[in-house]
């Protein structure tokens, strides 16, 4: 693109405006308008990437030569320039056109990397939209109208993009739509807007979320429409004898799929023998003949025009396909086999004209096509699904892709030997009368608990029914047992087994069951004590505000910790400041939790502390795990609200340790790179964090809890098996 363009022009806010005279200067990536009158406010400097398109007036005798650079295609607002003459305008128009084309390409390609490159980097609009969409995603549907505006205010200074703001406001997001405040929004609001995290940091750990969404949307392929759109209906205007057929790419695709002969003809004739337009003209002509239901006329036309005949005659490809398919058909359905087994095999045997048969002149038989055939064919194609994955715009590519997929299908069929066996198995299964037979052992799928709450809710019923005694056991859970005692008891059992020998079965089933129930009941005991409707979770019993707050704090803690550990090891000053910011934020949550605990009614206080406890515990555990070099803190058994203080102390100590090293070692530049690695690592940590052994089971939204719990249960079973008579109390304490 050649350097720059400089032209005289008048800037106008609207077409009728007289405008401000000045000079328009366009360079590769921006355009600058400088008014002749230096005092005028109409001076601006706009980059091309905020320009969505351009419009211009038609060249005419008296009309002004206008060029409108639009910011938003829907709104139409933008920068209007009037040039002195048309040639000037043309030069500018071409230049703008090139510049815009370049930018639209660049923004498509570059959006992925650009998103995380710099903290204050400008985001592509696609990326931005995606983020906004995520923020808007409704999870708990608590409407909060104000938030929309808040969010906007939050985003605007960060991005400094008036254009996005305009877009958002224009499309009425902020003003009209009720904003659903999701968890993500809350977090965003809390951390990004309050400055704990930057926008980029916040999103970096959620890159997966962003990617995941896009890949999901692109993956889902749309099948054929159930409606028979290939059944073209001619439209008449009522005055002339002209009829109109409308073809869209979608319809053409369906025609190709449903009528292989047309498809084949298209591949053969277009574009060598006739143009695409001619082809469809012919096709529509054939359709018209067909819909007049005049087989004689159709036959006459077909006799004259062999290409037309292709559309009018029976589809040979379909017929051969049918012959191929009929061999694989379920023999209990195969009516074709009857054909050869009938006494009717001598022609004219049986009762000929009993009113059920219809007569058609065999000469025209091949030109007769019924709606039934079309319907059957259409339904079959819809059932098969859409085999190709190309844009429907170009008819030729669609035709070729379809042909390719058919070849693949045919090849697959040949190699498929297991189909017949499967079919036979199915028949034998079908012949059985289901309720006379004892139920078959169906192949079972592995248990996968999507929502652990459901599982433990259902466990309540079990617990209530069978276990009066373990109730007592669960109460002892808080008393401590020293490792010596536990070891001693274990030794005792082992020696007992040595002397007595293993009993058969090793574990009495009832004990194993007790153990398992005890274990799970332990986890769900809170609810058990409530003794209420199993559908209700503890959280539901809390006042809504408390519940919301609790949940919110829980997610905030998760978020903070994730960021904290993503910046570990702390090697740069940047990370150091970030970590300290996080620590501060964390320390603010502590008193809030304390507050919640105190604010609730005494009935719920126990529940709340039970809920809050694992949150605190969790944080401490993570700290311990990651920092093995640090000394262990706090007592082993009891968890208190006080421990959050120690967590904070730990964080502080880390920061202190790191600080001096940092100051001498690395440059800022490297730090940036490191930071990116850490961001990536953080995502990884987020994914693999399911391996974390202790989780808070009753908080919704933390779905990954399920597997540790299963692990726990498994562990319990294993334990129960290895130590036959171990009293529940003893080892439960260890667990």
């Amino acid at each position, binding site marked *: 693109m050649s350097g720059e363009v400089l032209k005289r022009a008048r800037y106008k806010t609207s077409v009728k405006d007289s405008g401000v005279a000045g000079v328009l200067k366009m360079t590769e990536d921006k355009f600058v308008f400088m008014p002749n009158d230096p005092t005028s406010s109409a001076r601006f400097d706009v980059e091309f990437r905020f320009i969505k398109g351009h419009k211009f007036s038609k060249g005419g005798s008296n009309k002004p030569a206008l060029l409108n650079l639009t910011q938003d295609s829907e709104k139409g607002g933008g920068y209007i320039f009037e040039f002195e003459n048309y040639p000037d305008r043309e030069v500018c128009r071409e230049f703008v056109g090139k510049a815009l084309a370049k930018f639209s390409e660049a923004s498509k390609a570059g959006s992925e990397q650009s998103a995380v490159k710099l903290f204050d980097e400008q985001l592509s609009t696609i990326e931005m939209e995606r983020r906004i969409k995520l923020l808007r995603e409704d999870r708990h549907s608590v409407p909060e109208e104000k938030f929309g505006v808040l969010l906007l205010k939050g985003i605007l200074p960060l991005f400094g993009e008036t254009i996005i703001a305009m877009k958002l406001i224009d499309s009425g997001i902020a003003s009209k739509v009720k904003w659903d405040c999701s968890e993500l929004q809350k977090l965003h609001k809390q951390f990004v807007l309050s400055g704990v995290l930057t926008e980029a940091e916040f999103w970096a750990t959620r890159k997966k979320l962003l990617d995941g969404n896009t890949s999901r949307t692109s993956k889902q392929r749309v099948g054929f429409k*159930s*409606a*028979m759109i290939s*059944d073209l209906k001619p439209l008449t205007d009522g005055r002339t004898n002209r009829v109109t057929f409308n073809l869209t790419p979608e319809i053409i695709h369906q025609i190709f799929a449903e009528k292989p002969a047309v498809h084949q003809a298209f591949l053969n004739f277009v574009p060598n023998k006739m143009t695409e337009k001619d082809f469809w003209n012919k096709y529509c002509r054939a359709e018209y003949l067909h819909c007049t239901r005049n087989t004689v006329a159709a036959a006459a036309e077909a006799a004259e025009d062999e290409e037309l005949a292709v559309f009018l005659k029976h589809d040979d490809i379909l017929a051969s396909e*049918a*012959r191929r*398919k*009929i061999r694989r*058909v*379920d*023999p*209990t*359905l*195969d*009516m*074709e*086999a*009857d*054909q*050869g*087994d*009938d*006494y*009717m*095999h*001598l*022609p*004219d*045997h*049986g*009762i*000929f*004209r*009993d*009113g*059920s048969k*219809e*007569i058609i*002149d065999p000469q025209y038989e091949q030109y007769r096509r*019924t*709606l*039934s*055939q079309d*319907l*059957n064919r259409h*339904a079959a194609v*819809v*059932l098969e699904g859409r085999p190709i994955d190309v844009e429907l715009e170009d008819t030729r590519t669609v035709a070729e892709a379809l042909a390719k997929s058919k070849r693949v299908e045919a090849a697959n069929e040949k190699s498929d030997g297991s189909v017949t066996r499967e079919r*036979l198995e199915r*028949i*034998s299964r*079908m*012949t*059985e*009368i*289901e*309720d*006379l*037979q*004892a139920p078959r052992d169906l192949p079972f799928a592995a248990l996968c608990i999507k929502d652990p709450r459901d599982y433990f809710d259902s466990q309540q019923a079990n617990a209530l029914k069978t276990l009066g005694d373990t109730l007592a056991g669960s109460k002892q859970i808080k008393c401590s047992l020293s490792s010596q005692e536990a070891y001693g008891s274990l030794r005792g059992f082992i020696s007992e087994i040595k002397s007595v020998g293993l009993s058969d079965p090793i574990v009495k089933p009832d004990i194993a069951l007790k153990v398992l129930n005890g274990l799970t009941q332990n986890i769900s005991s809170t609810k058990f004590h409530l003794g209420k409707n199993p559908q209700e979770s503890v959280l539901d019993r809390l006042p809504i505000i408390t519940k919301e707050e609790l949940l919110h704090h829980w997610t905030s803690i998760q978020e903070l910790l994730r960021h904290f550990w993503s910046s570990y090891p702390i090697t740069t000053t940047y990370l150091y400041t970030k970590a300290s910011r996080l620590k501060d934020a964390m320390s603010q949550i502590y008193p809030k939790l304390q507050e919640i605990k105190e604010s609730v009614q005494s009935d719920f206080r126990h529940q709340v502390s039970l809920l809050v406890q694992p949150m605190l515990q969790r944080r401490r555990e993570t700290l311990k795990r990651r920092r093995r070099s640090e000394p262990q803190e706090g007592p082993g058994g009891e968890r208190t609200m006080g421990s959050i203080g120690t967590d904070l102390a730990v964080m502080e100590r880390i920061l202190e340790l790191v600080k001096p090293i940092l100051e001498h070692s690395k440059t800022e530049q490297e730090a940036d790179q490191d930071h990116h690695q850490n961001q990536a690592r953080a995502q990884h940590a987020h994914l693999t964090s399911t391996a974390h052994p202790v989780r808070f089971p009753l908080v919704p939204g933390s779905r990954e809890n399920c597997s540790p719990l299963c692990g726990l249960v498994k562990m319990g079973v294993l334990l129960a098996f290895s130590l036959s008579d171990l009293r529940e109390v003893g080892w439960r304490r260890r667990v």
Partner: protein
Amino acid sequence: MKFQIEDVTVYFPYDNIYPEQYSYMVELKRALDAKGHALLEMPTGTGKTIALLSLITSYALSKPSNPIKLLYCTRTVHEMEKTLAELRLLHQYQLRHLGPAARILALGLSSRKNLCINPAVVSAENRDSVDAGCRKLTASWVRALAVENPNIPTCQFFENYEKAASEAVLPPGVYTLQDLRAFGRDKGWCPYFLARHMVQFANVVVYSYQYLLDPKVAGIISKEMQRESVVVFDEAHNIDNVCIEALSVSVRRQTLEGATRNLSKMAQEINRFKATDAGRLRAEYNRLVEGLAQRGNLPISDTWLANPALPDDILKEAVPGNIRRAEHFLSVLRRLVQYLHGRLETENVEKEGPVAFVASINSQAGIDQKMLKFCYDRLHSLMLTLEITDTDEFLHIQTICDFATLVGTYTRGFSIIIEPFDERMPHIPDPVLQLSCHDASLAIKPVFERFQSVVITSGTLSPIDLYPRLLNFNPVVSRSFTMSLTRNCICPMVLTRGSDQLPVSTKFDMRSDPGVVRNYGRLLLEMVSVVPDGIVCFFVSYSYMDGIVNTWNESGILKEIMQHKLVFIETQDVVETTLALDNYRRACDCGRGAVFFSVARGKVAEGIDFDRHYGRLVIMFGVPFQYTLSRILLARLEYLRETFQIKEGDFLTFDALRQAAQCVGRVIRSKADYGMMIFADKRYSRHDKRSKLPGWILSHLRDAHLNLSTDMALHIAREFLRKMAQPYDKAGVSGRKTLLSEEDLEKMGDGTTNEMLF
């Protein structure tokens, strides 16, 4: 489970049994003991087939000294496959409990087209070409030539089979058609001839009706069957129609033209033989003088379809002298064709009896009744002599001779109807001469006479006293069983009004009323949005279905229906219908849901099950009356009135309702299954129509469901579907057990208490 019925230990492959199955077996056993015929109606979905197979095989096992043979006749090949699959299940169970003693040989038998494995032959399109293709390779003279000239192709599979001679046997087991083909491929033997041969030794043979009912086929296939056989006609509600069709022939212009061509071809052949091999013709003449009885000694590959008339009548007599010479016979046939040509030229509809017709032939063409009677056999003898292998080319002359033989044999129960055009299309001249049989008992008479027990069973044989009259036999057991249901798993409804409260009907004056068409469409549309999985709709005829579907398409109703479910339609093309059915099942399997449009007297209604999720609702649009203006039907009605004193109206209603009941009965397979049935016509609410429905439907048809409109039916459907979705106790509520275990049967003792179950 196994249990005793009197002195027979019955092996039943399931853990439980329905009480009605048990009673069915008890009745069946009594019939077998009495060596008499039985007529048993049991609702569909109660496991008739397995009860039958189980009892009869167990009966045979319990009497090893004189085991009975089971000839099981099905309507269609796919039913044959289903039956054999059930039999295999049973056989495996018996083998587990009895060991090798329980070994039986059971096989299905079908035409060459379904059994041939020679790729060169089986690729032919229709049955006749396959038959001819086979003859070209296996006829005795072809093989004789091939011995001298290795360039003449023969069928490798047949040669292998012949070489193996007496060693070519099927080991015991259950063979479906597919198994037979697989076995044949494995051994290199021709499965068709192997099966034909093994039929004599098999314990159970499953084949289609016409192998027994059509005298032409029966004469060849079934002549070796011993008298101690049990013949079962399953799904026999249409058996009278099958019998009638087996003895009906129609002659059209095309037939006569084809026959003329065939005759001149044969004349050429005769001249050729006269020049080269006059001895052959003379030998044939001598054979004919001795009578045709020796035809039975022909090699298996040369056999033809036997005489369409009862063979015994014919074989006693020698061929009349004036058609023994080939040229004379040809000239007789020419005269006959000429005469028929003349008769077809008529302007008016003509109807006459066989006697008058034969007299007219005699006076005008000089062919007497005896010559006519022997035409079919004489023709085949000639074709064998002339060594004609491309039999598919000579079908027309066979039809003419078949016609001649029938006309010459029967003097009553037939009429000849000549129509210059189809009533519905008077502008298209299409003259046809139809020899139509009115008396179903003619075709089935030899079966009743020959075999000691014939069992006729179906889900719909109501009114059960009509069948013995139609078929002219005396059953020792004739019973109709009801269905004991664990829950009300069938929900029949009579819909008389559409959503606009106007009556709906397919009565002739109403059926094309746009209001009725629209109401039917709305009914389906509403149902499609409520009922899960598969829905089956039956229409009264193809033309009506075409018309209504086209109207729905034009008014957009079809499009709306397609938004809920895929639409498949039965057409007159069986290949297409089969594929549509296959796709329909797949659509139901994958959860997409589908609607199948079918015709009440069509092939789908006859033999395809829409059990379980393949059919949760059947809508019967209209009453499937026969085309009452058909001359043939009128002639038959007249015959029925005169001979059996059956009123026309009664017969028509009976016929229509057995079709309707048959259609809706396809939805239930077991008691765990459920389905709704909508009879959408105001005429069903009338007592005289409704009362002809089988008892098991009537007992579930509540008074409140007799006069519904679309919205009410929709409401009932919703309720019903919700109720069916609830879990239930399969064994039945205490007091009325609907599922019996082995212990229950033992407790019941020797079958004296089982009556109280019903």
